[in-house]
């Protein structure tokens, strides 16, 4: 799409910009100008070759905030299925993009932990936000991130001060209702875990309207401070008619440990850009993911690991299960800079295709400019193992039970890597349920 004017975008940005801090305005304006110049990416661009975004670009999306607020119509009972049985966890709930304090909880947090909506933090002139917000997810990297920056209004904000441990996870819950139909939201999250601190964050995108057509365009920035430890689970269960284009931008400082699990099972078109910069020595990133698609769904994962310094370690395992006429795209880039000697990076992408009409495009890309490194990658696309099927059937399991069991097992291997136990158990249940219905 071309011909978006800055003026039009300003119109979309709405009154929140007025309340935003002064420092943000030039950033926002630059992002707007950037997007106005580039427009939506075209399929001619390598990064978007397999994921045509024309269905998003051609539609007119109304900013969700211009609609009547509906948060009051959502009850605690309605969000209960999405909180992993832990409603006592600090939870920020956003209904159709709007922060909903009545459904949120942030009680009993230790000193040094701040959990609040980003909108609130911006209005309060939070210093941490000023230092970090928009520093990592750069508008020039991706038009969708530019648009998010141009139009950001709200999202979750977590700050964990140095040496502090957040014992229970923070849950950022983005919920859509039937009123979201035809709207776009640009959730913006910021997680800053300082030196020697520890935290777990769950980011969920769920819906009460399984058939609704809307667009979610989130950006999450995560700062993993020196010698800190961050667990990040991301669960995308949007309506299967919705669009979800997300960027997660992670910075890992010296001796920092970042671990993520990304589950994608919703949306008609889902794209997740996960960019992790190992920004100093001895930092580490473990990235796990699972996408399960059916019907006409498209799930696209683009990850980039930047090894900028020596002695860093990255480990990545993504798996996919595809049925129907669905498609998956996996692009895993690992960039090892000349000074990043002793890099240890391993990447695996395995896809299980259950139908003749499903399709996977998987593309590992190693860009290695250092000579003393250990980097491997592997990608597979295949059907269920016939030997395993026969073995299971020979023990009395009917063919369809055997298939379901083996498919579940394929997923379970990576779901087992979810570090937060209640989230792991819930994902396990979701996978089981979904495979029964594939």
């Amino acid at each position, binding site marked *: 799409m071309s011909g978006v004017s800055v003026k039009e975008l300003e119109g979309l940005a709405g009154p929140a910009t007025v309340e935003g801090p002064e420092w943000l305005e030039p950033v926002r304006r630059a992002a707007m100008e950037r997007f106005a110049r580039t427009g939506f990416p075209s399929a001619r661009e390598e990064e978007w070759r397999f994921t045509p975004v024309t269905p998003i670009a051609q539609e007119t999306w109304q900013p969700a905030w211009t609609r009547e607020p509906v948060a009051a119509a959502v009850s605690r009972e309605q969000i209960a299925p999405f909180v992993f049985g832990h409603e006592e966890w600090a939870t920020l709930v956003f209904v159709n993009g709007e922060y909903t304090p009545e459904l949120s909880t942030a009680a009993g947090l230790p000193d040094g932990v701040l959990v609040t909506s980003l909108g609130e933090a911006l209005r309060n002139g939070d210093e941490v936000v000023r230092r970090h917000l928009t520093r990592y997810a750069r508008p020039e990297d991706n038009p969708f991130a530019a648009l998010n920056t141009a139009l950001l209004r709200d999202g979750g904000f977590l700050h964990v001060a140095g040496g502090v441990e957040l014992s229970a996870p923070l849950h950022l819950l983005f919920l859509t209702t039937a009123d979201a139909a035809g709207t776009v939201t640009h959730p913006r999250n910021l997680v800053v875990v300082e030196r020697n601190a520890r935290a777990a964050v769950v980011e969920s995108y769920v819906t009460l309207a399984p058939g609704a057509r809307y667009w979610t365009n989130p950006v999450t920035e995560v700062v993993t401070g020196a010698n800190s430890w961050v667990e990040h689970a991301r669960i995308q269960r949007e309506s299967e008619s919705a669009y979800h284009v997300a960027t997660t931008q992670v910075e890992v400082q010296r001796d920092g440990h970042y671990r993520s699990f990304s589950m994608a099972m919703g949306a008609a078109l889902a794209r997740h850009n996960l960019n992790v910069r190992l920004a100093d020595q001895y930092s580490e990133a473990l990235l796990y993911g699972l996408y399960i698609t059916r019907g006409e769904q498209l799930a696209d994962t683009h990850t980039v690991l930047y090894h900028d310094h020596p002695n860093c370690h990255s480990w990545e395992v993504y798996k996919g299960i595809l049925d129907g006429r669905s498609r998956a795209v996996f692009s895993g880039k690992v960039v090892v800079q000349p000074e990043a000697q002793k890099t240890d990076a391993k990447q695996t992408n395995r896809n299980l295709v259950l139908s003749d009409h499903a399709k996977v495009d998987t593309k590992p890309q190693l860009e290695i400019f250092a000579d003393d490194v250990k980097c491997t990658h592997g990608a597979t696309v295949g059907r269920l*193992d016939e030997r395993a099927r026969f*073995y*299971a*059937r020979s023990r*009395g*399991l009917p063919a369809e*039970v055997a298939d379901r069991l083996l498919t*579940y097992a*394929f997923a379970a291997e990576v779901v087992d890597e979810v570090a937060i136990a209640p989230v792991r158990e819930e994902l396990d249940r979701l996978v089981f349920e979904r495979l029964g219905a594939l």
Partner: protein
Amino acid sequence: MLSINNLHASVDGKEILKGISLTVNPGEIHAIMGPNGSGKSTLAQVLAGHPAYHVTDGQVLFEGRDLLDMEPEERAQAGFFLAFQYPVELPGVTNAYFLRAAYNEIRKSRGEEELDSMDFLDLLEEKLKLVEWGPEIMQRAVNAGFSGGEKKRNEILQLAVLEPRLAVLDETDSGLDIDALRTVAAGVNKLRRPDNAFIVITHYQRLLNYIVPDRVHVLSDGKVVMSGGKELALELEAKGYEWVDAQAEALAQ
């Protein structure tokens, strides 16, 4: 119990079984011996219903039913069991889950009530003793990362839990050290009953010191060329498979 009549089977268009006939009665143990490539494992796979093998002629009746007309899972549900020569690894599926699923599918097919996980654990405890294993093994993925000996022992554990009427042990002794061999053999002997039967396929006589067969059959080039009592195994061990080939040739002329 099992009656094989003139069984011919091929894989990839190549005939491997060239007319096998064999009858097994309840309470019996039969040993099938023969050199590599004689068709021993093919026979086992055909009986289990492996889709890669095509039966071109002959019949197999199992408990009065046409075995060859049944799906692999129906054979298991009817009480047929194959202990695989190369047990398959199932990463991500725990032994406990797999065994209970198999056990309950078989019960379900017979109109019996399924066991819940607590009751199943009780049953398992007793069966684990048979193979001298602790309960830890149940939380490991089926055969994943198991040693050769552990895989074979796991086959015997499945056999013990599923309690088939007829079990075929396909070279269960290969790759086992003497202690593991004894454990496996003792397990099988304890599972012997007047109403079940075993077919033990082996290349060597060694296993038959521990599992004593009622009948021994020697396979060569897809046919049973000799049958006899347990002493045939010893004779075979002493004289080697060349002796069988000579006998087979003599027979052919």
